[in-house]
């Protein structure tokens, strides 16, 4: 459609008379927002960065020791306190934890998302669920696991429930967002044919959602793998994270840390290849 040219008419003529300086732009909300945000961020950073450096801090020593440890990690990885098989088992445990939590999380989140998409659900439900999810998301996974490990006691239950909590909250949001992106015409059409809600969900929404559902779920799997490691370390929930924590915090054996980091990187590489395949397959 051709826009009539007089539609946008902001007075932009310069006042007559000698012009000392011609501006390049008038106030532009976007620009002002970006500038203000950047100024605030820069101010916070510059003002507080020096306060983070402790007094009597020997940067040189710290850096040499850091470089030394990095070198040990990457160039001299070997095991002392555990066996490779143990580590492999631990890695497997972390992977299983990530898998299980993603699976449970994605199924639960799917139903929550249905109940919180503007396309299908009443506003109060949408707002209610989404705020609840925002609050759950706000609590770091590791806190969930710590809390549940006291409630449930030992074993994997706490880790699974804790990570699932966060997964559900995250996935509900992204699933609901991608459902919201669905053209309203699709659902309306099905309604116009007299279809029931269950049929609309199964016959229209699921087929359209499948690709984004898969790709978000996979992304969440990667996040859950990282979380499984973190939780293993910070909440003693087992897996390769626990081993990592023991080696680095108890034995100070960075050779061993190196082995584990390599194992984790290897699995991350596998994930990256799969996600690349997924992306090219769906395109």
């Amino acid at each position, binding site marked *: 459609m051709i826009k009539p040219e007089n539609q946008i008419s902001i007075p932009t003529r310069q006042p007559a008379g000698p012009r000392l300086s011609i501006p390049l732009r008038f106030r532009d909300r976007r620009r002002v927002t970006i500038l203000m945000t950047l100024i605030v961020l820069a101010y916070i950073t510059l003002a507080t960065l020096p306060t983070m450096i402790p007094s009597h801090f020997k940067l040189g020593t710290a850096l040499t020791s850091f470089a030394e440890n990095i070198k040990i990690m990457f160039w001299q990885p070997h095991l002392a306190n555990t066996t490779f098989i143990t580590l492999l088992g631990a890695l497997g445990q972390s992977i299983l934890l990530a898998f299980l939590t993603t699976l449970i999380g994605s199924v639960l989140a799917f139903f929550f998302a249905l109940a919180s998409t503007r396309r299908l659900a009443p506003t109060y439900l949408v707002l209610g669920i989404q705020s609840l999810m925002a609050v759950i998301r706000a609590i770091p996974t590791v806190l969930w696991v710590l809390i549940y490990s006291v409630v449930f006691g030992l074993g994997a239950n706490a880790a699974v429930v804790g990570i699932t909590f966060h997964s559900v909250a995250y996935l509900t949001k992204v699933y609901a967002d991608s459902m919201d992106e669905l053209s309203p015409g699709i659902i309306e059409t099905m309604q116009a*044919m007299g279809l029931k809600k269950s049929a609309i969900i199964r016959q229209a929404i699921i*087929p359209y959602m499948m690709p984004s559902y898969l790709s978000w779920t996979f992304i969440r799997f990667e996040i859950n793998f990282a979380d499984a490691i973190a939780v293993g370390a910070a909440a003693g929930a087992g897996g390769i994270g626990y081993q990592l924590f023991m080696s680095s915090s108890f034995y100070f054996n960075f050779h061993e840390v190196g082995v584990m980091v390599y194992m984790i990187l290897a699995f991350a590489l596998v994930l990256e290849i799969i996600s690349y395949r997924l992306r090219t397959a769906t395109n």
Partner: protein
Amino acid sequence: MLTVKHLAKSYDGEKKSLTDVSFSVQPGEVTVIIGPSGAGKTTILRSINQLIRDDDGEILFDNTDIRQLNRAQLRQARCRIGMIFQNYNLIEPLTAIENVLHGCLGTKSNLAGIFSIYRNREKEEALKLLEKVGLAEFAYQQCRNLSGGQKQRVGIARALMQQPKIILCDEPIASLDPKSTITVMDILRDLATNDGISVLINLHQVDIARSYADHVIGINNGQVVFDDRIQALSDTAIASIYQKDANSEGSVVHEF
């Protein structure tokens, strides 16, 4: 078949999109609604199957007022009203036959809807309809791979699967190339003539209306300004239908 009386609708409670619209549609006839953009054509069509709730009036379909029905009854009624959209609104990741079969889900149970359980009779019917619109060989194609004209024909087959008494078409050919336009309009014409279905079409193209319509309703600024046989549609009548209304605020862009 369908009679609309004194229909009124305002989206924002202020500006009236429809004022006192009355007309009726006969079985076996193609009725075309024409009018400038923003006149209210889409609003009329969507009021008929209550995709939007109007403010006032009566819509008699099979002698019951659709506006008075409760949710379940409305779903029942909708099962007998086919609808065809400018953007086809097919479920693109599914195949043509699945889309056509959706047309009969309205009368089926929740379970059937969830697990795609269809009777053999329905499957047969769907295949027959695809053949009728000339797409027998595309039955197992994903709809996203079809061309615009093909998609619209799947849309028609889906509407027919509802065994409708009336088919509502909102600018069914706006996105189509000339050749597909003719194919689609021919099918619609045929449905009215041979199957006795009422066909109600929103159109922008007056020349197409001339070739296919039995009856024409002209809408301008939410009011019926013309309602007669196609033969009565003179050039002056057209001019008056499309005239820019002095009362309406804003500029109305003519897109035809």
